[in-house]
């Protein structure tokens, strides 16, 4: 499995990834998925990434913010009424 950028989250990430790959290949791709069965594991994984400030420490949360703000800027640019 690919590694997490936060080594402390590797274990929970691996559990989630394993769950997701099984769900994706056995249910989702066969058109029999009704819910995302791996969501509880995903929440744990996400908690590790956010609560432990894994993203923050690496300055990534700020970059994500900037990426979002950038998108808004671009959207505003393109949505501008042309002329008149």
């Amino acid at each position, binding site marked *: 499995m690919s590694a997490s950028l936060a080594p402390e989250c590797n274990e929970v990430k691996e559990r989630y990834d394993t769950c997701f*790959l099984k769900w994706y290949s056995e249910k989702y791709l066969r*058109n029999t*998925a009704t819910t*995302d069965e791996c969501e509880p594991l995903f929440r744990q994984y996400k908690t590790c990434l956010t609560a432990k400030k894994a993203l923050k420490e690496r300055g990534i949360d700020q970059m994500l913010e900037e990426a979002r703000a950038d998108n808004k800027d671009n959207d505003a640019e393109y949505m501008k009424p042309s002329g008149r």
Partner: protein
Amino acid sequence: MVKFYSNTYSYDYNFPAVSLAYFLRYPNPYSRHVASTDTIERSFDPETQRLTTVRLHVKQSRLPPAVAKLLPKSAVGQDQDGRAQSFILEKSVVDVREEWMETESKNLDWNNVLSVIERHTFRRPEEESGTADHRTDVSVSVTLKSRIGEQLRKRRQRWGEQATATSVIGAGGEEEPVVKQGWFSSWSSGAVRAAVESISLQRTERSQPKAQLGMSVVLDRLRQGGIQAVLEGMKDDRELAP
């Protein structure tokens, strides 16, 4: 100025295999520089059966020496060895009913130098083609835009406006605001921007076939031994990482 790359090709595998390989494509022998991959958001809509995923990839990258030469170190954020981390934010939507997948990847930290947006569409071919069960059509586009000096230009624009306002008021004879000369002045010429974009386009033209080969390796492993074979292959690739 913006540079644009686009291409279309096919994989000789059905859509489900290709979509799975996309999620499993790092690391592979052609992208050992991908240090990590994290899923940041994922949502499944039972109504439409669409799956939306946002992932963050961290790559060890080296700015092309030709580009590095054009820039002061402080503008790039490299360490002393000239290595830099690239963050790639990738959003994907899979529609399993209609059998297509759309992805968009944005390069995050070269933002002050270069903005790269890469889009992929994977699609099951039309039934009439007779290949729908063992082929997936791909179209890829990459938009490259140098962002050097963007902030500076904005600032200058504002200054320009102020200067105009002043002369209208009739202050007259006033000097233009002094802009520090130096390497900054070359930014505005656009020559550096154009060079960065051209070099990056050449790099894209070289790296795209590699990305395609990487996917093929993952698809082949999937066919040979399913997900287990892919994961074992990944382990080997990770051990070989630089």
